[in-house]
């Protein structure tokens, strides 16, 4: 799983893996991230992680050339992934998941089957993107894959749990969104008053736990604390 390096501009390039995103690939990306941050921080402006790329913004073009000359001979050992599993409570109900019933109908599944399929896996957090605090998760059951809506919902409420394409995710803040909303979580997912503003790290896992509407409506800060230990 050796990456190639694609130069995009004199100060921008990316490490490229042409494989599907997996835990194995994430372990290798972590090894590259650690190596780059340890050895190149002074000449690097920014690193951004995606499912199959690591994008590197260099301070100048000679910094990038320096890295290209070294990167070909690198042979890095994959980094073990963290074992932490976060439980994320979700109320799956038509009241809080406005698309749940249509979604189940078009997949030919009962609501219970959708909930069962969605709460069963542990999802791996690969990186944050799209919105502040939005997890990119790997591990959605193919039985729940569903093309995005052709017309996005103008204002998806914060905490909405949704499915789009091969992915599931949680809207941390209100935003327009093209994914199918199947539930709502009462947890905060992005808070600038906290340092850091997110409570999970890439590589950790999350598992959805069903709660009912009464639990969601009576959710207290203390309940959040219990979940985010």
């Amino acid at each position, binding site marked *: 799983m050796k990456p190639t390096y*694609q130069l*995009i*501009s004199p100060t*921008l390039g*990316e490490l*490229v893996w042409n494989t*599907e*995103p997996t835990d194995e690939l994430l372990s290798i990306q972590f090894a590259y991230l650690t190596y780059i941050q340890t050895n190149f921080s002074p000449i690097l*402006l*920014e690193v*951004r*992680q*995606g*499912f*199959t*790329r*690591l*994008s590197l*913004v260099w301070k100048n073009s000679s910094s990038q050339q320096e890295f290209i000359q070294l990167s070909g001979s690198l042979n890095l050992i994959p980094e073990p992934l963290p074992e932490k599993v976060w439980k994320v409570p979700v109320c799956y109900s038509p009241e809080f998941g406005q698309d749940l019933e249509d979604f189940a109908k078009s997949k030919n599944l009962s609501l219970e089957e959708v909930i069962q399929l969605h709460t069963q896996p542990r999802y791996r957090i690969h*990186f*944050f*993107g*799209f*919105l*502040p*605090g*939005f997890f*990119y998760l790997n591990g959605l059951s193919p039985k729940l894959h569903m093309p995005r809506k052709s017309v996005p919902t103008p204002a998806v409420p914060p905490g909405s749990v949704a499915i789009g*394409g091969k*992915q599931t995710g949680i809207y*941390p*803040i209100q935003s327009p969104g093209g994914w199918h909303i199947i539930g709502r979580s009462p947890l905060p997912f*992005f808070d*600038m008053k906290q340092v*850091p*503003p*997110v409570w999970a790290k890439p590589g950790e896992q999350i598992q959805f736990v069903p709660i009912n509407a009464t639990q969601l409506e009576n959710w207290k800060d203390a309940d959040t604390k219990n979940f985010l230990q």
Partner: protein
Amino acid sequence: MSTILGKAQLLRCPPGTTLQDEGRVLGANYGVPRSGAMDLHGYHWANHLLQNQNQAVALEMAQPGLKIKFEEPCLVSLAGAVAFVTVNQAPISNPSIIAMGSEDILEIGKFRTGARLYLCIEGGFQVEKPLGSGSDFVSITTPAKRATDETLYYLSNQNKTVLQAKPKWTSDWFESEEIQAYPGPDWELLSSVQHSKLLNQPFHISKLSNRMGIQLDELVVNELEDLPTNPVFPGTVQLTPGGKIIVLMRDAGVTGGYPRILQLTEEAQNRLAQKKTGDPIYFQLI
């Protein structure tokens, strides 16, 4: 020399007005966009005139109509779009640097050229800088955009000597229709017909444009599948399944799943930020 905290009242604030600096790189790991001035060239020039430090916070306007009253004396500068400017209703012929007196009112009229205007103030507007930047963004700064009746703060130097220099801002550099770009990471996935279409025909700025992205009116038909979500940057050009071209700008999310077909140079991003709805552009590969 004595410095006191001055207040600037936004007596009228058009939609789309925000505070901006060079933006933040510290938040990308949490999914926080870079933000910052859409036209960094204009922003830097206006700050340079006042000898401001890096990251001095300025007002970015995307429409005419701003009316702002400064309670204490200060020096302000304007760059980016070229607009009709008055102080206490008297027209200012060269508004590059203006010495504002106590209770003076500055008004921004029609933009003659360009689409984004920067109002800088000596020392910068005084705001918190979450994740290293004062650039407005929802969930990062409060408020996330500026509104009428709001107060901004600045440092007023009470013993000011007025600058003798009268530099003139010119907008020639953004009048060119050429937008220079590098081939993007997914450029090679396109056919030669698509390449030729992208490089040989004019595209026009769509009205569906904002700080997150500038859309173009013309479509480029494509059958590319969605790709795994990967990093994008300001200046990344995406091609959607419907054939729409979206040039990502400063407030774009840090990752995207559409093919990334071009990457604009910094200068091209600044130039594009000054284009108005309906303006033509040509992509030029470097």
